[in-house]
């Protein structure tokens, strides 16, 4: 061990202490508390008076149709979002991936909704989706009516509300994913592309055989992140639909929120949170294994 290394390991503790201390207090400790409360009947207003009840919260949740409903809604939202957003982000990235500075403005355009925050856009889109009401029609119904579609109450129609939230969310988030793909595209080997071009490969063939395979890691990353983000759905239904109509847009996080603050059932809400965490962990693991296998 050199003198430098000796000094280094003695100093390490001071370097790590602030961040790890904060993570311990604000992340690890709450997680442990959540795990404890999830096996008790803890009440939001009287947390000291919590009794051990074993797995009852969990078995209750799994039997609760509303929880199942919330889970299925959120899963459906993810299924709507993940493939579409990933594909669209890739298309946009290929489109704006040009060296000329003149094209930079287009990147900014697609990235702009990411900069404008989600709560702001949730509010704005509620107005955009507005059906005709006393002569006031939202922008979206105006656009669809140009193509001859009937006026629709997007957010109040049970079969349209969730897809409407998904469409808004894709529009909002696609710019960030596009940036990730743009970064990934810088890693595509120029030689390979040129070689393929010399071999007479069409643009499409180059895309399928050269570009996409070398984007595999990027795609895996984008899919994983988008899935996790989709399962965290909260602001859109909270502000735009309040979980309605008919609970069709009730999300997992919203269910947890209501269980905690309206029913005051802290224990049950924590159990829901841990099930949620298990699910997110499982998805991450699944996607890692799937993409790794493909690679080998």
């Amino acid at each position: 061990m050199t003198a430098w290394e000796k000094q280094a390991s003695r100093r390490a503790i001071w370097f790590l202490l602030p961040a790890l201390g904060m993570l311990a207090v604000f992340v690890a400790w709450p997680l442990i508390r959540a795990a404890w409360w999830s096996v008790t009947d803890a009440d939001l207003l009287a947390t000291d008076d919590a009794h051990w009840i074993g797995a009852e919260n969990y078995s209750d949740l799994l039997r609760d149709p509303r929880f199942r409903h919330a889970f299925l809604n959120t899963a459906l939202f993810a299924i709507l979002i993940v493939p579409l957003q990933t594909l669209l982000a890739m298309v946009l990235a290929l489109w704006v991936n040009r060296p000329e500075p003149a094209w930079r403005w287009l990147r900014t355009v697609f990235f702009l909704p990411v900069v404008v925050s989600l709560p702001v856009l949730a509010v704005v889109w509620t107005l955009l989706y507005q059906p005709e009401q006393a002569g006031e029609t939202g922008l979206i119904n105006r656009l669809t009516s140009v193509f001859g579609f009937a006026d629709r109450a997007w957010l109040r129609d049970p079969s349209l509300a969730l897809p409407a939230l998904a469409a808004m969310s894709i529009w909002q988030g696609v710019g960030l994913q596009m940036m990730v793909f743009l970064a990934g595209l810088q890693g595509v080997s120029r030689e390979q592309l040129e070689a393929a071009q010399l071999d007479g490969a069409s643009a499409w063939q180059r895309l399928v055989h050269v570009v996409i395979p070398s984007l595999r890691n990027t795609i895996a990353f984008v899919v994983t992140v988008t899935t996790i983000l989709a399962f965290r759905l909260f602001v859109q239904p909270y502000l735009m639909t309040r979980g309605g109509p008919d609970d069709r847009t009730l999300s997992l996080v919203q269910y947890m929120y209501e269980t905690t603050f309206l029913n005051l059932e802290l224990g049950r809400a924590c159990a829901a949170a841990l099930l949620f965490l298990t699910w997110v962990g499982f998805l991450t693991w699944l996607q890692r294994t799937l993409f790794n296998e493909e690679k080998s």
Partner: protein
Amino acid sequence: MTPCFLKIPDGLKRYPLVGIVCWLAALVGAHAAQDVRLRVWSHQGQEAENHAVREIAEAFNAAHRDRGWTVELSFFPDFQYTEKLAVAAAARDLPDVFDLDGPLVARFADVGLLKPLDEFLSDAERADFLPTILAQGTVDGRLYALGSFDSALVLYYDRELLARAGVTPPVEGQGWSWDEFVKACEKLKTAGIEPVALHMNESADEWFTYAFSPVVWSAGGRLIAQDIARVRGELTSEAAVRGVRAWQELFARGFAATDPVEPDPFGQGRVAMDWSGHWMARGHLATKGDRLGVMPLPSLGTPAAACGSWCWAISAETKQQEAAVAWLRWVTEAETGVVPLVRANGAVPARRAAFAHFPEYEQMPYALFRAQLETSARPRPRTPFYAMLTHRFAAALRDISRGADVESRLRKAEEAVQRVIDRKRPTKTAEASRP
């Protein structure tokens, strides 16, 4: 030369963030230096109501300037108000005084968050409140909350539509028995008129418990045995099942819509009767005029009506008890609180002394609102398990309206609620057995 204390330290120039932190710290300091104030929270409500609360607070402040009491009002949107209260209660950061919805009183009182009000209220004051207001705020024999106004639930009808179907309404102030009600529905249906609007499209659970508990009560049932916190066997008691079965029949026979879309089909003239509250009175009077009639809800035995609304409570941890009590008294006093509030929101005054200011209470439909609150109205169950109860009961009613078997569906609901109560009961029974 610049004096050195006017120079900006180099650090601040170089690190704007340090500057921001200092500026924020100064902001915090400025706030801390202000006077002690009475923190009061209220739900946002309609703009007129909101405005009224602000004016009441200004009047209070002006009247108590000599004592140095200032009410600092905070409003939170209705849809997040209950959550906000729960969070503040959990954080032990409740304001000195706040308003809350009637059924929440027991929940908050149960965990000791509310200050009992009995000692602050003289017998004369107490006697001036409507009995429903006192009942709503009383949990286990102690008074925890007082409202400035109350609500009423009635059956509005359209005289012309009833006449067209050959239905005679009851004498003014009287209600139908359930059989008479069903017969009237039959006649209306035959005449091609939709008989009654039950507002099943209401998304809040609360509407169901509020509007249809009276059916259970009038059949002789109850939702919960309040004193011993027992639901099992109550929701499925013979009386309760009889009541809910009679109610289900209204949907099964097509007298009421299970999934209406319009918020006010009665006002539009499509439906002959409206099972609804005092808040529709102004609108209905405006559209129907003399055609509007009103009667108590149909009865399955004992006439029963609903009541309950927002009420004011004092935090158990307030350090400004005297000022808090003064505010509570001010806002529930006829002249200073009740009259301006009721003018703004059209609810039923909570104080007998206040009715003199509202001549409309001499006539229908308002006279019936008051009469019901004085005699047949009952508050919703005052139990800490109310949130759970209302949630399950409402879900059961929704399913039953669509054809679910009454007894088994109610049993499912009562089992779900009872399971939670049983778990909590050890503490509950321990308290009850205390002398």
